[in-house]
């Protein structure tokens, strides 16, 4: 039987506000436990939530970015369940009337074609606290600093058909929220969390029973967990068993998913409108002010890079991965006057060096303008592309600008015909047997044998001779 995978994602993006969604406590990460949990966050009796304008503004920006219908009137609801890191016994969320309605994003598939993924909705809600299950004399420790941090829960349609598509969609949402500046996207700190609803069905059939995968805190784990889960479900169905609707936890160490709780005993959340909060009404002026400084979004930037700079779709995709990287490329390209060269170096040497050093583009020791100047030296013939690698390494390890490194290490390309001619003459004089062989060989073979002499000349000039000139001179001298 041919099975088809069906995946929908729920993504929780922590909004980058200074204060919490319903209180004036700080949202800064990493504070001492419970020092940023005020009486509203603790759910003490008599307190009332007051909605943070910035959280609403950020949700609106997201809605506009994914071309969604905005909920002109949205309502907060209580989602009831019991867990010690949720002191009120309910989470304030949105249910029937979310702030962001139906929208969509486009992903690039492996074959380079685009696919549209529907976003069902995005709603505002408060985050819960953290439970620490290490042993406190048989008790559990609770830190409520995170309680009340604003979240935007982004729910997709079940439009993805493979783990790779799910990853492409998740990356796209990650990219959009970061471009918009509404979420820092830090997955280690839990600012961007993903749950996947996964089911399989015979091709074209009705939807199968789904399992919900939790605890996917990297794109790699998202892909691995889905692949494991698809295999598990197919194995069950093919052996005549059923798939149970349940929540499963991904264990990265064992690379497997395991059952957390089945839906039969799961909570009935008993949603109802929160009487402590009035409906939120978005008027035209609020929306206009929320979107007045919208940045150029990833898709538009990618297309512009293709048209304006003649880059391949692949290069443009990589360079628009983050706004900082795109800006880096553009300013290096402007300085160098050669966008394709700048694209190759940004995606090549710069990315490799950043990866190796575990650095972000914003902390690159070689700034965009430093790279641009170095590329200009390739364009104007001061150095060859090969020598540029040494110059780049020099700049990376703090030896100064391109011009300083070229000067200090004497890397300027030798274009002086007389100087090259002298080296060529020396090489010919020092290798009489090779010259003899060369002259005796057929024309077709000579071209190949020339490589030996070019190599010697480059070695003598320590790579600085202009290769084109070396070739010309050698051919002339050997034959003459």
């Amino acid at each position: 039987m041919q099975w088809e995978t069906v995946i929908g994602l729920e993504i929780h993006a922590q909004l980058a506000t200074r204060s919490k969604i319903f209180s004036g406590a700080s949202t800064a990460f990493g504070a001492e436990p419970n020092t940023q949990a005020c009486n509203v966050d603790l759910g003490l009796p008599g307190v009332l939530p007051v909605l943070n304008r910035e959280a609403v503004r950020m949700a609106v920006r997201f809605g506009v970015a994914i071309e969604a219908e905005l909920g002109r009137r949205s309502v907060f609801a209580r989602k009831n369940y019991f867990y010690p890191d949720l002191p009120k016994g309910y989470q304030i969320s949105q249910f029937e009337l979310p702030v962001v309605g139906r929208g969509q994003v486009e992903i690039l598939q492996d074959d380079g074609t685009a696919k549209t993924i529907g976003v069902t909705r995005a709603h505002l809600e408060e985050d819960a606290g953290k439970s620490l299950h290490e042993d406190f004399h048989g008790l559990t420790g609770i830190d409520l600093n995170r309680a009340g941090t604003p979240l935007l829960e982004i729910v997709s349609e079940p439009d993805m058909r493979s783990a790779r598509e799910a990853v492409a969609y998740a990356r796209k949402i990650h990219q959009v929220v970061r471009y918009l500046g509404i979420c820092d996207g830090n997955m280690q700190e839990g600012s961007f969390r993903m749950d996947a609803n996964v089911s399989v069905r015979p091709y074209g059939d009705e939807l199968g029973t789904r399992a919900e995968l939790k605890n996917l805190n990297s794109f790699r784990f998202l892909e691995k967990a889905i692949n494991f889960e698809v295999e598990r479900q197919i194995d069950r169905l093919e052996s005549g068993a059923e798939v149970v609707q349940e929540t499963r936890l991904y264990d990265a160490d064992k690379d497997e998913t395991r059952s957390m709780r089945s839906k039969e005993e799961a909570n009935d959340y008993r949603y109802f409108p929160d009487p402590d909060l009035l409906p939120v009404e978005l008027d035209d002026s609020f929306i206009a002010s929320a979107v007045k400084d919208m940045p150029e979004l990833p898709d538009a930037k990618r297309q512009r890079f293709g048209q304006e700079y003649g880059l391949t779709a692949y290069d443009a995709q990589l360079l628009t991965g983050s706004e900082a990287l795109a800006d880096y490329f553009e300013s290096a390209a402007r300085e160098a006057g050669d966008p394709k060269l700048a694209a190759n170096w940004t995606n090549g040497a710069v990315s490799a060096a950043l990866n190796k050093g575990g650095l972000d583009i914003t902390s690159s020791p070689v700034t965009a303008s430093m790279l641009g100047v170095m590329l200009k030296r390739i364009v104007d013939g001061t150095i060859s592309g090969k020598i540029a690698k040494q110059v780049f390494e020099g700049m990376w390890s703090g030896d100064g600008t391109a011009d300083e490194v070229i000067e200090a290490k004497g890397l300027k390309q030798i274009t002086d015909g007389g100087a090259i001619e002298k080296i060529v003459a020396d090489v010919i004089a020092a290798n009489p047997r090779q010259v003899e062989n060369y002259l005796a060989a057929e024309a077709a073979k000579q071209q190949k044998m020339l490589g030996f002499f070019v190599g010697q000349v480059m070695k003598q000039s320590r790579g600085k001779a202009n290769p084109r000139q070396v070739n010309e001179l050698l051919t002339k001298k050997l034959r003459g």
Partner: protein
Amino acid sequence: MSLDRLEVEKIAHLARMQVSGAELDAVAEDLSDILDLVAQMDAVDTAGVAPMAHPLHMAQRLREDKVTETDQRDHFQAIAPATENGLYLVPKVIG
């Protein structure tokens, strides 16, 4: 609509309330009466009436995104049954 004892037990579990076996029938009857009242309201034709989210016909006022709270952990934890290293301690949730 009438609830049976089993349903009342499930509702009690969701609400984390202990209802003794002796109380079950009486609670079932009370809850069923409430549901009957809801059923009466449910019978009213509400086509074209928007669900009410709040009895006040007003919109939510928004707060400026500013940190206004200071650390009052010691004050709050003075009434907590158990704390350690700044954490609130509660009975173990995961065994």
